[in-house]
């Protein structure tokens, strides 16, 4: 009769079994067989259901919907119970009462894929309806975040960016190039980028640099290759003596060589036509 798969029914059945055991111990039994307890539990459950059914039938027969004590009495009499003994039974001395276990809420299994909090129902929706899904499924928010306009934040951001960039670059050059160390023992503690001494250090201070540093370097390399190591001194001097026009030509040459080096900037080659 009872559905064992239903959790509610199982818990009620257990409570009923406990009540049956309490009644048997009140009567005087110290122990009982499990089959006996199960039989009595089943009988008790069926009895309650039968009382309810017959009482309901009698109530509806009298064209009422609310049941009264007289309906219950009639139902009990019809089932053959002696109702005069009920008050006596109620006043027995050794009655045992047990507090039914408090209804525990179902353990909420942690939803692993839940993102954000679920919103509560608005007031016009009753609570027994299923809850809303995750808010990101039905709320649209702009993908573009408004940029910071506060001066302080921007300033802080710029400062941190600058510091990070400097640190990263210096570290990179220190690790890939030559380093000098401050301490004798620990070489790798504070690596400093090795200084490359230029042959005529005062030239950099005297002469203005208003051309590409790339082109200057390339020109240096170009000159050293052509002239050899003996013309080291003349390299930078030669570049200093030449006028701006020559410098412009050289820069153009270096720019051309740059373009040629870059495969994407080469001149297109037309296929040779054979006629």
């Amino acid at each position, binding site marked *: 009769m009872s559905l064992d798969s239903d959790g509610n029914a199982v818990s009620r059945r257990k409570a009923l079994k406990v009540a049956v055991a309490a009644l048997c111990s009140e009567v005087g039994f110290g122990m009982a067989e499990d089959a006996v307890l199960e039989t009595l539990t089943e*009988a*008790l459950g069926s009895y309650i259901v039968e009382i309810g059914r017959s009482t309901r039938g009698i109530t509806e027969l009298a064209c009422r919907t609310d049941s009264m004590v007289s309906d219950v009495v009639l139902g009990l009499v019809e089932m053959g119970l002696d109702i005069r003994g009920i008050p006596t039974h109620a006043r027995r001395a050794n009655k045992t009462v047990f507090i039914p276990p408090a209804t525990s809420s179902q353990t909420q299994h942690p939803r692993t894929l839940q993102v954000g909090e679920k919103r509560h129902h608005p007031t016009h929706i009753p609570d027994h309806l299923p809850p809303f899904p995750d808010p990101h499924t039905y709320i649209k928010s702009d993908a573009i975040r408004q940029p910071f306009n506060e001066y302080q934040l921007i300033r802080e951001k710029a400062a941190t960016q600058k510091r990070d960039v400097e640190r990263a670059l210096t570290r990179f050059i220190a690790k890939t190039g030559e380093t000098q160390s401050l301490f004798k023992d620990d070489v790798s503690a504070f690596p400093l980028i090795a200084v490359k001494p230029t042959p005529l250090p005062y030239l950099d201070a005297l002469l203005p640099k208003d051309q590409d540093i790339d082109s200057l370097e390339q020109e240096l390399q170009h000159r050293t290759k052509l002239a050899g190591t003996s013309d080291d001194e003349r390299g930078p001097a030669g570049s200093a003596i030449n006028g701006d026009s020559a410098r412009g030509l050289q820069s153009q040459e270096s720019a051309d060589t740059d373009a040629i080096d870059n495969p994407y900037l080469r001149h297109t080659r037309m296929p040779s036509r054979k006629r």
Partner: protein
Amino acid sequence: MASSDNPNVNISNNTQITTIQGVPSVTQQLQDKSAGVPLSDFVLQLEDYAPTIPDSVTAYYLNRAGFETSDPRIIRLISLAAQKFVSDIANDALQHCKMKASAGQSSKKQGKDKKFTLTMEDLTPAMAEYGINVKKPCYFI
């Protein structure tokens, strides 16, 4: 209250009992002190009473039968009636058990076994008196 002894017609203002032929009238019932009246008084005392079977359990089983009430005293009355039913069966089984125990043991021995064990052999005849025939297989295949 109608004072005539006419078994067919009965007019009463207080109670809602419809009489059937052959059933004594209301006054006769009152004079017999039927169980219905003291029971209705008893029900009024049930508000603080807690029967052994919890209210929620009884209400659950009654709801399965289609019985719904807003008055908890009726639920307690029903649970008391069901308790009495089980307790009567248990009492009869205890009598059976004691009879067997007293027949088996002599008075020189401990007398009564203080701890009675409720077994199927005692329960089956007790339930048979109430019309419930229990047949349990002694072994399971």
